């Protein structure tokens, strides 16, 4: 069956079938030659559609993520085209795979090296809860050492599930207040993990 050729003539909403959508303008007042809206909406719009992912892949979930990055599932459709392999440049940490207790401090260091704002996805059962490795050597979920925004279940999750997780993070990013990272509550959260 021939594939229909699509041109980006009429803006369509972004979906999982590969349509690239145009981001809608945020809510606001517009008139002749002006448009007003909240700064946080504009910043959120920009941030959510240009996330830089940092893959931290230690096992089989990482292989699923490679498929997610590849042409078939194409994470790039969601504005997360470029994998950054330096924590200092990235916004979104994807932890994929079993984290041994000895790896814990390394992961924490990577998280600390990321600059604010930063988001974390725990991909798969091991990163979320230790998974089947209920053992003396395995960290029972990365949320023991760093705060996690989105958990993706599965062992390993399919690429669609990882995409869904990324979309969930985009949703969080788009709605986040620009003051959140300076708030008392956020400081408390960081302190509870011992991160300044």
């Amino acid at each position: 069956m021939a594939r229909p050729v699509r041109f980006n003539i009429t803006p369509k909403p972004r979906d999982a079938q590969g349509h690239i959508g145009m981001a809608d303008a945020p809510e606001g007042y517009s008139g002749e030659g002006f448009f007003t809206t909240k700064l946080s909406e504009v910043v959120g719009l920009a941030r959510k559609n240009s996330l830089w992912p940092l893959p931290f892949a230690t096992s089989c979930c990482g292989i699923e993520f490679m498929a997610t990055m590849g042409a078939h599932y194409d994470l790039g459709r969601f504005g997360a085209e470029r994998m950054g392999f330096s924590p200092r440049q990235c916004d979104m940490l994807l932890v994929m795979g079993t984290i041994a207790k000895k790896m814990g401090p390394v992961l924490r260091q990577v998280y600390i090296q990321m600059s604010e704002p930063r988001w974390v996805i725990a991909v798969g059962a091991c990163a979320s809860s230790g998974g089947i490795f209920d053992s003396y050597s395995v960290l029972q979920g990365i949320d023991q050492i760093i705060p996690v925004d989105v958990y993706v279940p599965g062992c390993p999750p399919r690429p669609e599930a990882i995409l869904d997780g990324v979309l969930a993070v985009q949703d969080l990013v788009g709605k986040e207040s620009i003051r959140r990272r300076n708030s008392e509550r956020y400081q408390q959260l960081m302190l509870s993990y011992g991160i300044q």
Partner: protein
Amino acid sequence: MGLTNERIKERLIEKFGESVTGFSEPFGMLTFEVPKEMNLKLLQFLHDDNELKFRFLTDLQAVHYPNDKGRELAVVYHLHNFADNVRIRCKIFTDIENPDVFTATRLYECANWMERETYDFFGVNFVGHPNLKRILNVDEMDYFPMRKEYPMEDQTRIDKDDEMFGRGGTF
């Protein structure tokens, strides 16, 4: 032709007499036991003897037998004779209260990391080892996880329902 298990056994008894015990041949591999004070003498003899020529230490590890009082920990040496392609296995047993065993690092450099691993998991104290500290587990660990007195599962968890994992509960 070649070095047979019978010949190795003969040479060992010739040299060490009654000290070498517990000969067996599981899957054709000669296995025996010596007192733990004799491990270095034995390894040195197997290494230097011009007929035996066991000059490669393939593996070194421990086994925990919790019910065998006074000889709970076994340290097992796997040796290889490259010239005749013969492998043997020798064991020493030690009390878990006093797990001091002489190190083989002076004889085999490769014993260094293997002894650290054995110390890490079983707590065998290799006397004379140049750097006896944990190698695989986190440095803060304060027990030896492969000893059978410790359960496999992480005991700090509270969110995993034992019934769901097929242990305890009503099953």
